[in-house]
């Protein structure tokens, strides 16, 4: 197919515009930092250097709490499965009138869920506090 006039001129035009953009962006004057810049940076650095080092996370004190929370969480999971599954499997048999055993199981499950939630919250809170100390 014979190229039309537009076909022949269009790449040329595109190329020219791009070359001009290239020329403009490549020929930028350089800034010289202001006279106080170096002093200002070094002042900030000296201030940082003078700060006491961040307080390390008190692992020694936190470890028992973390272990306890992990234990509670694990126990909670176990209880949830242990009590929750029979309760769930019993529901289809008596959808409207729950037996006393199932009701007790469900109530226990709710408490386990609350305990799990509390453990999760305390873990999130301790992680957040540790994050502020620069550990995470």
């Amino acid at each position, binding site marked *: 197919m014979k190229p039309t006039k537009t076909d022949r001129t269009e790449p040329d035009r595109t190329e020219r515009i*791009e070359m*001009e953009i290239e020329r403009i962006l490549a020929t930028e004057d350089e800034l*010289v930092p202001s006279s106080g810049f170096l002093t*200002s*940076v*070094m002042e900030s*650095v000296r201030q940082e250097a003078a700060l006491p080092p961040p307080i390390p996370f008190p692992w020694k004190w936190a470890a028992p709490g973390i272990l306890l929370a992990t234990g509670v969480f694990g126990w909670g999971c176990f209880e949830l499965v242990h009590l929750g599954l029979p309760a769930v499997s019993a529901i289809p048999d008596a959808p409207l009138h729950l037996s006393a055993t199932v009701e007790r199981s469900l109530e226990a499950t709710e408490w386990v869920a609350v305990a799990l939630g509390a453990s999760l919250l305390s873990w999130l809170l301790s992680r957040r506090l540790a994050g502020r100390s620069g550990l995470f």
Partner: protein
Amino acid sequence: MQPGGRASSPTARRVPDLTANAKGAIEDLADVERVLAGDAQAFEGIVRRWQGPLVNMAWRYCRDRGRAEDLAQEAFLRAWRGLANWRRESSFSTWLFALAANVFRSELKRFPTVNLPLDAAPEPSRPAVQHNALAEQLSHEAVRRAVLALPLRYREPVVLYYFYEMDVAAAAATMRLPEGTVKARLSRARALLRRRFPHLEAEYAAMEFTALTIGKEASN
């Protein structure tokens, strides 16, 4: 990019001064060792050598002189805090520029510069017809400001590519992206700018005409 601030001169591709670069690298390493050994004052040498490039790099990200210095200062502080993280696998400058680019990117995301959308960026008013230096200067500034109106994924490759004097590899290393990706983004950015400034063709023609006239006059 070589260390040290330069007086304003167009940054047309410079011949790299390998001796100065090698000397600068040795000095950087020595200063880093001293800082890590507890001599905070040794950081001054690093700031002295790299303040020019870092301020210029920040300027290209925001085109606001005051903010550029603030951003560069923040980058130096982060470098100071994280000096122990430089693993010597890459040159100090590569590490510093990558860190600075991260700082500039995140700071400008938190507090963006007021940018017009690309379509609203002012178009130069036919400087080829007006033929005066001021019009050309304004037109060039419009193009440079339009770069800031590009979406971030296209803006950063353009900023770094021209900051590194058209070195794709250096720009890619700073952004930690493959060279191919940077090239593709550069191409897309050029296409966006080209569509925004169709009249630049006339300016280019005028420039060529001027160069020809000067050439003829010189030969006569």
